[in-house]
């Protein structure tokens, strides 16, 4: 169950239905109580299953999401539990998957579709930009598109080319889309449920290098908390989190870069520097208030993202912080991002990805007085 690309034999759909069913029923019955070590993949899978239980109009489809359960197993067991009409494989055609989802959303469904990999979502770009993002506006709100497009994204998994792109900036740049990206296991569950509940279309960017990361999580409690929050009309949308409080500088990160930022803060603490880490969580809408509040307090900031820095979400964050916090800044805001190069081959990716040292170098550069 490692995050491989589709060349594995399992990816050919050879898993028997019986095996899939057994796995699903085992998953359904074996949910332990109390905090347990849970992977991001399991949290996402549970969120999908819970949403499908809660609402018969929630449908899951994409490439290999049926019997196989997805190349990352995020849809594992859904076909067995809910039937082939609720979770199914489509022909290989990303534009077709998104376009059909648009039609289904027009006609009363809540499709949650999977793009197999970041770079394989590009054939769907026209549908996403010209229809998913614009339908509500074009029809003056007469047509809502409550749909979620799940995109496993980012590198750090030793993947070959076309399997490691950070494509979030394309979507964040497109007016009419909401863009979520969880960094913790609990947020994986919570934010996917909220994305499915949303009446606006959501690009749900899943950091694939975090799929197998584990946190101590109580899924039953998360489920109850979601129900309570949903009935109270609360959601994470537009709400960044302070992932680690600090006083000297702010690290602003999202998705796959959050654990890296936390590791950098940990290392900085050993050197006597207190870094606050902000997990942006929803790129669109962006939580200016939480981010600005932190930077005004610390007076220094570094923005961290895997994606190329040029014309990106990270450049947008720098611009927004600069506009709002100029008089509180003791130093220019720094960025630690991927280089402006096509995503490198597996043996070179460690030079490309923002790492703890590069982040600490940037922090050192923030014009400290002593």
């Amino acid at each position, binding site marked *: 169950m490692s995050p491989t690309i589709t060349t594995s034999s399992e990816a050919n759909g050879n898993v028997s239905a019986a095996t899939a069913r057994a796995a699903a029923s085992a998953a359904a019955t074996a949910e332990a109580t109390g905090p347990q070590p849970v992977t991001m993949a399991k949290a996402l899978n549970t969120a999908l299953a819970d949403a499908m239980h809660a609402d018969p109009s929630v449908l899951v489809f994409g490439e290999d999401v049926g019997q196989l359960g997805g190349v990352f197993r995020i849809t594992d067991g859904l076909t067995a539990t809910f*039937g082939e009409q609720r979770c199914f494989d489509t022909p290989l055609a990303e*534009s077709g998957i998104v*376009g059909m989802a648009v*039609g289904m959303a027009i006609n009363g469904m809540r499709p949650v579709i999977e793009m197999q990999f970041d770079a394989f979502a590009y054939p769907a770009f026209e549908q996403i930009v010209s229809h998913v993002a614009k339908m509500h506006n*074009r029809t003056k*709100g007469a047509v809502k598109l409550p749909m979620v497009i799940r995109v496993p994204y980012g590198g750090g998994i030793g993947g070959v080319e076309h399997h490691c792109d950070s494509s979030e900036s394309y979507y964040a740049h497109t007016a009419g889309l909401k863009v979520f990206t969880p960094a913790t296991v609990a947020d994986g569950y919570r934010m996917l449920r909220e994305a499915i509940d949303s009446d*606006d279309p959501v690009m749900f960017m899943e950091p694939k290098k975090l799929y197998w990361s584990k946190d101590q999580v109580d899924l039953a409690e998360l489920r109850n908390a979601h129900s309570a929050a949903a009935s109270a009309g609360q959601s994470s949308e537009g709400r960044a989190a302070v992932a680690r409080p600090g006083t000297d500088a702010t690290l602003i990160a999202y998705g796959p870069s959050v654990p890296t930022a936390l590791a950098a803060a940990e290392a900085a603490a050993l050197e006597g520097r207190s870094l606050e880490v902000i997990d942006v969580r929803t790129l669109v*809408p962006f939580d200016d208030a939480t981010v600005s509040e932190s930077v005004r307090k610390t007076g220094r900031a570094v923005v961290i993202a895997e994606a190329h820095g040029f014309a990106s979400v990270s450049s947008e964050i720098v611009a927004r912080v600069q506009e709002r916090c100029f008089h509180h800044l003791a130093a220019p805001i720094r960025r630690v991002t991927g280089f402006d190069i096509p995503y490198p081959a597996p043996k070179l990716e460690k030079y490309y990805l923002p790492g703890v040292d590069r982040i600490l170098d940037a922090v050192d550069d923030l014009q400290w007085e002593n």
Partner: protein
Amino acid sequence: MTISADHTAHPDTTGQAPAEDALSEAAKKFGITAEDYMLPARHQIEMVDPDGRLKPEGEQGTEPGHEYPLPGDEELLAAYEQLVVGRRVNDQNSALVRQGRMAVYPSSHGQEACQVAAALCLSQGDWMFPTYRDAVAVMTRGVDPVQVMTIFRGDWHGGFDPLQHKVGIQCTPLTTQLLHAVGVAHAAKLRGEDTVVLAMCGDGATSEGDFHEALNFAAVFHLPVIFFVQNNKYAISVPLAHQSVAPSLAHKAVGYGMAGERVDGNDVVALLAVLDRAVKLAREGSGPLLVEANTYRMQAHTNADDDTRYRQNSEVAEWRAKDPVNRMRTYLTDRGLLDDDGEARIREKAEAVATQLRDGLSEDVPVEPQELFRHVFEKTTPQLKEQSALLADELARDAAASQNPASQEAAK
């Protein structure tokens, strides 16, 4: 098997009949092979010739399994009325563009038979997904003409509620709407509804990737979608020969495992016969169909286009002789279904619609700048609230300045 509140269906009981079984079922119904069912008949289906005479049965292009009964008189009269209205709408809109009342109008002059038949073959609960050129089809479906023209008047991207009319917003990115048609049909099928969806595109658009994806999805999921291609011979300036060298566009159907048919696109009788049967077959569960209508774009692509740069006047003149409106008038008059009174009543109706368009489009509709922000999301964002406040402030200052020119001077 439909989606119900019992959403824990066992996978073994939810499988649908494989598409190939249903196809051979359909073929069996007509006593022909599945290939013969999917391949279009050897000739296009045509019933009333350009001179308005009913063709002898042996010359209508029909074959075993591709048989088409003549539509009823009432349906034909209703279609003729819409043809006359459609022609008037096209010419009125082109005039309004020339007068500067509308930004642009892609006219379907010459293609009215296709427009009318596409709308009339559907029932109330069915859906239609039109292109930019299909305004007349949308009006024939019952949408208010002035609302339909909003997209071209330029105060918003669309003027009608797609859900109310079960008509998609007119689509410009070529063939992207075909996939929406597939999705609407798929959702309806999962709920056990017998909705049929008609999805429209042009000949040039059949080269697009979404055309392929939509046909394939519809066939694989066995959905009641009718793909209706108006082959008007040009994609702006590019003739069909540069798009495809398939024997016909209808022949593309067999490659997806669906039935295809060609029809004289200037013969509303044949169009209704073919589309009515397609709707019936789709509703009965025979899967998707592809219908290619052979017609001609009589005018330039839009008012901004100069068609003398890429086609001969003689070619246009040849097609003028095949006009869909005139031949229907002759046919109905000769059959005694239409007299001078009937004709006058229909012309009056067409005039009334033209007046409605003139009145509706000459009105300067005030635009509301704050609408820019109102519809982007169902739940708006703090950023859009800020930007909306910025614009409101700008406008308030402009208004104050224009009310008080002295202060405007002073400000300079």
